[in-house]
């Protein structure tokens, strides 16, 4: 269970992992995550929180750190109406669950910033705790779900090579 962080604006890789801190350690980079649009985010975010965004989530460069910082900060899942391709791949490869929100966000006024939510990973549902309501997300294809469940591509391959 956690807090819903809802963003109205397009979230690009540069606000997730700002350029000037790209050579810094991940812990330092994470402190500046989203500061350009929500200065309190990095200090207030807690393990289990969920990020909700609109179209083209993670647009911009191919930098993996954009997904890596969100995982580092404890984000449980990123939900968006659409994702930029390389961010989507990087998130899955780093073990950060990403779900497409298949409906129009405006039809769900209860999905407010600050709402208490949890994510049913296997069932692909976003649960609104205070309203006792489940909202369907687009399920991840099985192959990608397994990849995320293993913690990302590297742990997934470690497991595979250990078996073989």
């Amino acid at each position: 269970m956690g807090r819903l962080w809802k963003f109205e604006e397009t979230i690009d890789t540069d606000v997730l992992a700002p350029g000037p801190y790209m050579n810094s350690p991940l812990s330092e980079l994470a402190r500046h995550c989203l500061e350009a649009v929500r200065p309190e985010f990095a200090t207030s975010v807690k393990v289990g929180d969920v990020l909700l965004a609109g179209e083209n989530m993670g647009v911009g460069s191919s930098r993996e750190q954009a997904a890596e910082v969100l995982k580092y900060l404890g984000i449980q899942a990123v939900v968006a109406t659409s994702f930029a391709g390389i961010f989507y791949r990087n998130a899955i490869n780093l073990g950060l669950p990403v779900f497409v929100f298949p409906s129009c966000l405006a039809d769900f006024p209860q999905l407010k910033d600050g709402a208490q939510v949890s994510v049913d990973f296997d069932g692909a549902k976003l649960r609104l705790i205070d309203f006792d309501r489940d909202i369907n997300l687009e399920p991840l294809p099985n192959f990608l779900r397994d990849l995320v469940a293993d913690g990302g591509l590297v742990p997934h391959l470690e497991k595979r090579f250990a078996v073989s």
Partner: protein
Amino acid sequence: MTTLAQKLIAEAAGLENVAVGDVVVCHVSLAMIHDSGGPRRVKPILEKLNRKVWDAERVVVVTDHYVPVFDDETRAIQKLTRDWVYDQEIKNFYEEQGICHVVVPENGHIVPGMFCVGGDSHSPTGGAFGAYMFGVGATEMAGVLATGEIWVKVPKTIMIEWRNSLSPLVTAKDMMLKTCRSIGLGGGRYQAIQYAGQAVYNLSMQERMTMSNMAAELGAQAGLIAPDEITAGYIKNAGGRLPEVWQSYRIETQGADGEVLRFDAASLAPQIAAPHSPANADDAEAFRNIPLDIAYIGACTGAKYVDLKAAATVLSGRSVAKGVTLKVAPASLLDQKQAEADGTMQILEEAGAQFLPTSCGICAGYGTDRLLEDQVCLSSTARNFRGRMGATNSKVYLASPYTVAASAITGEMTDPRHLMEG
């Protein structure tokens, strides 16, 4: 109807056919990496997995980002790259020969029907040869190098059709800036783009590479062009092995399952994109009277042989305006040699150009040559994001090599047709 993207993906996955939205695992025919995102990032992951590269024949390594080295750190990156290549017994190693997206096809590595990944966002360039090619991050590249496999979610195909023929002094770069303006950055929504139409078929191989290269700016995964005799001729000349079935990699005009965008090439004017997005493009005329400090002919997008030749067409017998610096960084040594052999380099030099090494140069912003505060640059490169080429408040405009050359001569943003056609 099977699109070219679906055919290429199905073949790489060893399946009869695939449908949009399927997630399939593909066998990679070629993995391309460079000195920045390559060995220094993948080496620790491969060591953790206790794996060498899956097939040294299918890996190509190019040094182009930290070239030339300028301090101990960049020297160390190049040493690590060399040592790793030697250790992994990789034969396809191009050290300081030019930019990966240009050097790799120039050496015949990319042919129709291949399924390739590159550790760089401009990797869709390979799509110009009828190969499926896209960019991935370092972790994912390490996974490819360990297994020879990668997953793909089968994309929709967006058709971009350019009807009729371009007028003189209008190029593939102008076509792409116009497309960026029309659908916006990210308008490609990570689908596959296929380019078709008379104006595309008329383009030389290197100009087709510019089209596919900038599929990255559109946010598409791949930018495909069906191979024809021009492709076949280029590959033979580059020493590549053309597969017998190369003509089977076709694009059906009705074959798109996504959007269809149609443009008229004949009425297209030279384009300029204002800071800080390639989508801020408009007819060059709209930027008239804006002065510039630096004219830059560089990068995989804008300094191949055809680009140098285009710049020379305009610069021949003319010279760069006072107060403007024209910098030229040829995309590869091979392109530079070709331009030396036919007098193109001499024309550029006589017009007052300064030459930079054949590497990513100012475009990637990695070296010591960077834009200063408030400098205005008109560049033949692909991206003008804030601060990418230097100081945060430098301003980068984008255009074709013709337009960059014409503007270098007048000292302000200029439609090259005004200069050449009186």
